């Protein structure tokens, strides 16, 4: 059993990054794939992560597990990738279906008083391991830039301001993208989960 660098390891000299590829490579790859969707981009992000980790080994103080330290680096690479790809395909200001101009939105911040109710008990479903595979499948089906907006705001838990900077969009535009993402995710989940 390879000696896994734990909180006691000072990172200098005792840690072998090539071992980390075996120990943590799959986890990092799956995480990257979950955020980037594209296998090649995910592979690149993971490789960049390991290289960056190697060159900043001296800064690993063992306070977090290696896996999560690496993941921290990976998350930066993921955001970098999304920033780059959104520059390559600049996001048009949303056609917001008139939501933003509606009286209801201006007064209450919502697009409708009567959204279509969930077709199943979402909270109950969240207890099932299988639900999360379906969740990821539905996430993968979102079109850009909705997918990227959802990934950054909801999964990477970034501040709206930061997300707007990465995607180069306004806060209102971000709201529309997330509104659409939520709506499409719900529809997809309703279809795939109830038909599983």
């Amino acid at each position, binding site marked *: 059993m390879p000696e896994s660098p734990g909180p006691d390891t000072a990172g*200098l*000299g005792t840690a072998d*990054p*090539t071992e980390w*590829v*075996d120990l943590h*490579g*799959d*986890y990092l*790859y*799956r*995480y990257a*794939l*979950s955020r980037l969707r594209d*296998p090649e981009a995910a*592979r690149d992000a*993971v*490789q960049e992560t*390991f*290289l960056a980790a*190697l*060159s900043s*080994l*001296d800064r690993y103080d063992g306070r977090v597990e290696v*896996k*999560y330290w690496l993941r921290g680096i990976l998350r930066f690479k993921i955001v970098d990738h999304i920033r780059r790809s959104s520059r390559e395909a600049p996001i048009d200001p949303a056609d917001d279906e008139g939501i933003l101009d509606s009286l209801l939105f201006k*007064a*209450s*911040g*919502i*697009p*409708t*008083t*009567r*959204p279509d*109710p*969930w077709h199943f008990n*979402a*909270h109950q479903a*969240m207890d099932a*391991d299988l639900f*999360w*595979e379906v*969740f*990821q499948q539905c996430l993968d089906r979102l079109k850009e830039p909705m997918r990227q907006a959802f990934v950054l705001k*909801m*999964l990477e*838990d970034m501040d*709206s301001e930061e997300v707007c900077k990465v995607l180069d969009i306004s806060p209102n535009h971000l*709201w529309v993208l*997330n509104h659409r993402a*939520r709506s499409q*995710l*719900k529809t997809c989940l309703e279809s795939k989960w109830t038909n599983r």
Partner: protein
Amino acid sequence: MLTCKQVSNALARQDYASLPGLKRIGLRLHVALCVVCGPYNRQVMIMQDAARNFRKREDAGEHPVAGPALSGPDKERIREALRQAPKKTAENL
């Protein structure tokens, strides 16, 4: 007293679960009772629950989505890149 706009803005800004205690209670109460913004904002909160749950599962160790692993050749490529990379060791820091 919270307005619908304040509730909607708060939910747009952050996960309701990370609001401080009293604010969170106030928001949840408004959403539970308000006929105007309740139904929509409740759905926003459900999505926040899903995202938070997903992240929590990721933090627990295994990725919640079993999915593909890095292939043997891909792993070897990365190990090779690491071996080729300039090294900082205890000696030359």
